[in-house]
């Protein structure tokens, strides 16, 4: 028992005070955001959300999972023990022994952090993050020395050295939250888990956008404080690991978007300042230092270039990869809503498409009656009020595209072969409004939805079937909030059911080329359906060669979120990258399950694998087929 212990006790309480003060200071910034429900009891959800949901993502990278477990686990244990032994002034040697253990674990973790930062991946941020192995190690070493060294040595120079190390480590740990340092993530991350703006995601796959109150004074987000406070908190949880950056198709294509930088810019927005100090990869083509923000200043264009906002394909690859459970796409859509609804600042062909939707209820400005022209010779029933049918086929905008009509004709052939009681929506069909919604035009989306829901409510059917994952997602996940409750099936799921029950009789495919399957984002990531199309392909004897990014982590085709309309240039096109993925497997054929993916992948020029919808492959393998 000597004076150094008291010094540590003092330091501990000072640190607690600094942490509390810093957190309150930071919380004041968050609380400038718009209202969102709040309940302290939500803090109780943190352990489960951390150990299950966060771990589920982090565990995909075993090295960093191990590293974080050691360094954070060691630190938390050490701090808790210090709180006990020094905070409460117990000064028990036994507890010091435990501190030694915890600090050793933490030191080991710090070593791993150091290792990783010796040759850092390009997705990692440098700057203050690079000092972490040293400050964390200093903290651990300080504790080790404090607890291990005989008291005789704990004076003079050594004592000063130990206190310096502890001071440095403690400063890193507790000042981050108040000053925006790297360790901010520990506090903000925990609070973010507790007060997450999309809390449903911890119970189920939750990807639907929230309906916007069109009577609200501000439509969407203009300035940082228009975000809900817990969204701002969520931005602060970012650890700049860059997993999102590595997954982002727009970033890969050299378009001016980097989800990691985007989140950091949102942080800059509500905390104020310039992006000059950002220590990661910038938006491709945009140099650092040119943008700055403030809580009450419009985000576009001072903080964020419009091209960045409109580069997003809403594919959710960033969200899927984010260990901190940040919702990048929701933020993008919030910003788009303001740009589109309040400012009409939609680039490219976006505005033209929205005009078409309002005037013709089709994206391309077509005659709705032409939507099912491809079916006139197929002897398909058109649904009528008063006549009931089991399955109602909703084709979507792709029905106007000659290419996708082939997929639809194949689907009809399969339904007929399986004797499914089905009808088409025919000229009654209007666009779901999905693309309008992704482009921020919530008003047009809600108008389209109201119209379609009204039409569907006059009809008697059991289930809705569609081959378009965007129609599927919209009707299944987003219409309920607007009063449209339907059973909706994607064609691959429905056909997989028919095939496994024997109602759809398939023989082996005659296709000899190697086949890979491209997961549509709105089927895979948005709806978790990655198995049905694969099961169908297995059923006809296809042995899939998987691409490096597949399933829930599949790479976007570039067609989502209205990106083909806003058409922000990059250094290459996203579908080119995706086709390169397919080529790398040696596939001669890419099976798809989405009209958007089909169009994007077929748009790749030069020799490439053929792109064929699963339904077309099945139709060619129908039993009794010549």
């Amino acid at each position, binding site marked *: 028992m000597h004076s150094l212990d008291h010094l540590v006790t003092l330091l501990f309480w000072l640190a607690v005070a600094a942490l509390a003060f810093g957190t309150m200071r930071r919380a004041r910034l968050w609380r400038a955001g718009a209202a969102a429900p709040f309940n302290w009891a939500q803090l109780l959800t943190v352990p489960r959300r951390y150990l299950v949901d966060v771990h589920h993502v982090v565990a995909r990278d075993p090295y960093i999972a191990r590293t974080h477990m050691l360094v954070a686990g060691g630190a938390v244990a050490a701090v808790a023990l210090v709180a006990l032994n020094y905070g409460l002034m117990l000064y028990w040697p036994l507890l010091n022994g435990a501190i030694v253990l915890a600090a050793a674990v933490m030191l080991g973790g710090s070593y791993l952090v150091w290792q990783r930062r010796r040759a850092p991946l390009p997705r990692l941020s440098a700057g203050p993050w690079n000092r972490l192995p040293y400050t964390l190690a200093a903290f651990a070493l300080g504790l080790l020395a404090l607890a291990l060294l005989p008291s005789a040595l704990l004076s003079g120079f050594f004592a000063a050295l130990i206190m310096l190390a502890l001071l440095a480590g403690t400063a890193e740990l507790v000042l981050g939250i108040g000053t925006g340092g790297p360790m901010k993530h520990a506090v903000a991350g925990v609070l973010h888990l507790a007060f997450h703006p999309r809390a449903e995601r911890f119970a189920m796959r939750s990807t639907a956008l929230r309906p916007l109150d069109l009577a609200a004074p501000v439509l969407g987000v203009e300035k940082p404080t228009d975000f809900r406070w817990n969204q701002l908190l969520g931005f602060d949880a970012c650890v700049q690991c860059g997993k999102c950056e590595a997954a982002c198709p727009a970033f890969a294509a050299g378009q001016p978007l980097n989800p990691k930088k985007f989140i950091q810019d949102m942080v800059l927005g509500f905390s104020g300042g310039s992006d000059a100090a950002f220590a990661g990869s910038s938006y491709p083509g945009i140099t650092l230092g040119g943008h700055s923000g403030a809580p009450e200043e419009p985000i576009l264009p001072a903080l964020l270039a419009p091209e960045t906002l409109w580069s997003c394909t809403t594919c959710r690859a960033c969200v899927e990869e984010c260990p901190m459970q940040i919702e990048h796409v929701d933020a993008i859509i919030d910003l788009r809503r303001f740009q589109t609804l309040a400012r009409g600042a939609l680039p490219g062909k976006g505005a033209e498409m929205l005009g078409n939707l309002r005037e013709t209820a089709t994206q*391309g400005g077509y005659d709705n009656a032409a939507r099912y022209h491809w079916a006139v*010779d197929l002897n398909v029933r058109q649904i009528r009020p008063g006549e009931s049918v089991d399955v109602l086929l909703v084709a979507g905008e792709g029905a106007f595209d*000659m290419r996708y009509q*082939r997929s639809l004709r194949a689907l009809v052939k399969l339904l007929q072969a399986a004797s499914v009681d089905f009808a088409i929506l025919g000229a009654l069909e209007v666009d779901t409004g999905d693309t309008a919604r992704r482009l921020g035009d919530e008003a047009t989306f809600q108008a389209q939805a109201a119209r379609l829901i009204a039409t569907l409510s006059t009809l008697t059917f059991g289930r809705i079937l569609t081959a378009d994952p965007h129609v599927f997602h919209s009707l299944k996940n987003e219409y309920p909030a607007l009063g449209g409750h339907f059973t909706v099936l994607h064609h691959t799921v429905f056909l997989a059911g028919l095939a496994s029950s024997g109602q759809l009789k398939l023989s082996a495919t005659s296709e000899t080329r190697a086949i890979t399957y491209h997961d549509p984002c709105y089927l895979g990531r948005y709806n978790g359906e990655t198995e049905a199309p694969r099961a169908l392909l297995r059923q006809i004897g296809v042995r899939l060669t998987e691409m490096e990014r597949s399933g829930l982590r599949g790479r976007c085709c570039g067609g989502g979120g209205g990106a083909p309309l806003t058409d922000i240039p990059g250094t290459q096109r996203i579908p080119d990258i995706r086709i390169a993925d397919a080529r790398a497997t040696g596939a001669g054929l890419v099976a798809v399950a989405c009209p958007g993916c089909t169009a994007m992948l077929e748009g790749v020029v030069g020799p490439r694998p053929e792109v064929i919808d699963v339904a077309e492959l099945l139709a060619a393998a129908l039993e009794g087929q010549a």
Partner: protein
Amino acid sequence: MRYPNLLSPFVLNKLTLRNRIVSTAHAEVYAEPGGLPGDRYIRYYEEKAKGGLGLAICGGSSPVSIDSPQGWWKSVNLSNDQIIEPLARLAGAMHQHGAKIMIQATHMGRRSAFHGEHWPHLMTPSGVREPVHRGNAKIIELEEINRIIKDFAAAARRVKAAGMDGIEISAAHQHLIDQFWSPRTNFRTDDFGGSLQNRMRFGREVLSAVRAEVGADFAVGLRMCGDEFHHDGLDHETLKEIAHEMASSGLIDFLSVVGSGADTHNTLANCMPPMALPPEPFVHLAAGIKAVVNIPVMHAQSIRDAGQAERLLESGMIDLVGMTRAQIADPHMAMKIREGREDEIKQCVGANYCIDRQYNGLDVLCVQNAATSREATMPHVIAKSGGPKRKVVVVGGGPGGLEAARVARLRGHDVVLFERESTVGGQVNLAAKAPQREQMAGIIRWFDMETTRLGVERRLGVDATDAMILAENPDIVVLATGGASHMGQVAGWGAASGLSVSAWDILSGRVAPAQNVLVYDSMSTHAGAGVADFLATRGSRVEIATPDVKIADDVGGTTFPIFYRRLYALDVVMTPNVWLDEVYREDGRLVAVLRNEYTEVQEERVVDQVVIENGILPNDQLYWALKDKSLNRGQTDMETLFAAAPQPSLSQPLGGGRFLLFRVGDCISPHNIHGAIYDALRLCKDF
């Protein structure tokens, strides 16, 4: 959305067509004895239905009366109830694939010949003879008029009873109805002649009787001319009046408009515009008529391309596009358009092999598609072989070799194609050099693209030797080496000493045209007239001589008039009925000795150049070099070939030096483009 017009459905009366693509009525020359559609007829149309077209109108010039001869062109006979059952089978076959089917009904009047079948006395309003068919005819009487009107109604009843989707009445190409319309053929002074109203009476009564018979809900159309192009015939303005009158009668659901009269050789050539005419040469006539009627207008004449068809619909000139020869060339055209496979469409080039055969009373065949109308035995879509994968070496990149390579490749084999020249095409490349014959190259364009797309290993610019072929270690060798100008037949021509040159020499540019040129054409095909045209167009003074009865005697009815139009305009002297005995040099010029076939009198021509078209001799050197080394000693088994069955020799183990040797096309004996392609298809489809 591509082709928003072409691929949009169309409603005719109660009928919904899935798109605007029509195969309009044409004489097929396929009907079985008695004028009944049989298996071949039905399969021919069914293939188009499978291929995705909206509507087919079959049975060009199907007679409704027993005295309108059926046999000359093996037309469908609508004059008795036997027709109902086969038509019902046809309708069923079409409907199964989502297509609609109508039939054309007519009375030909004077437009026929009397000397056949029942030896009828042909009838026409005023007894004026029809020149093209040498149709001597009597003046039609009132009783006959009334009977024929009833015949039309009875035919319509049969068509409806068979479950067909509609009927088209022909008043085009100078059939009986337009013989009444035309001042060229109607000089009557009764109620059916004189004023236009009177001249329209017969047609109107036919339509009334037909409509009364079939009721309001059955589609009835009328095919008519947009301008007869005769000084004494129906002009466009008069035909607009007629069209307006017929459309406003409420009796018909659509009009099908064609350009040109058809009762002289020269006007006939316009009806199915050959390649010399520009695309859609007469659509303005259909558009003119559309401007004065309130019912849909259909038009066919050289609409061969999807983009072209879309443009005509988009511009509002017409409502339905007839793409008839286009679908003879490729019955799957509509489907390929729908599927974005336009590049795979075998596009009609207007060679008119089809119609030129028909005018000779022969079955319609496509110059570039040997499967058309042979659907029972020849596949339009080549299926992969279930047997062993083979190495097939094809020598010669003319149409026969290209088809052999294409078909063998589609069967799943590894195919090497040797071609001596740097481009594929063979003799067709030369044929395309003649003026107004450039589109012949379109035949090769398709084969060129297909063999490339399918991955045939093409060794262009390589003059294959037997050693090179054997070095490929082939399982099968197909020789399609064609031939070379046959200049040595008469020693007196002096070809060996350079006194005469071949048509190939001129067309290929190897020999420049001289000032005064005698073209001697012993073949009378397109080549001789073409080379005369080629020379005259480049400023030579040309005489073309032939032992045949007329110049270009073996060129069909819709094509020889094109040559004549050009040769007469270029002052080419045409001398039939002479043989070329000798060419000799005198005073630095050439003297050609011609001998009259009938008088034996010789006459001389002093010229600067003698160009001879005497067909070809087969290139058979490779054949003789390989024959003894092959398992089958180069023999094709004719019994199985003609039965469209696999060659028996294919069942032997091949490879390791054991190979089969076959030949196709001109390298056996001179055929034509169709012949070479047919040889290749029927042989290679079973590889």
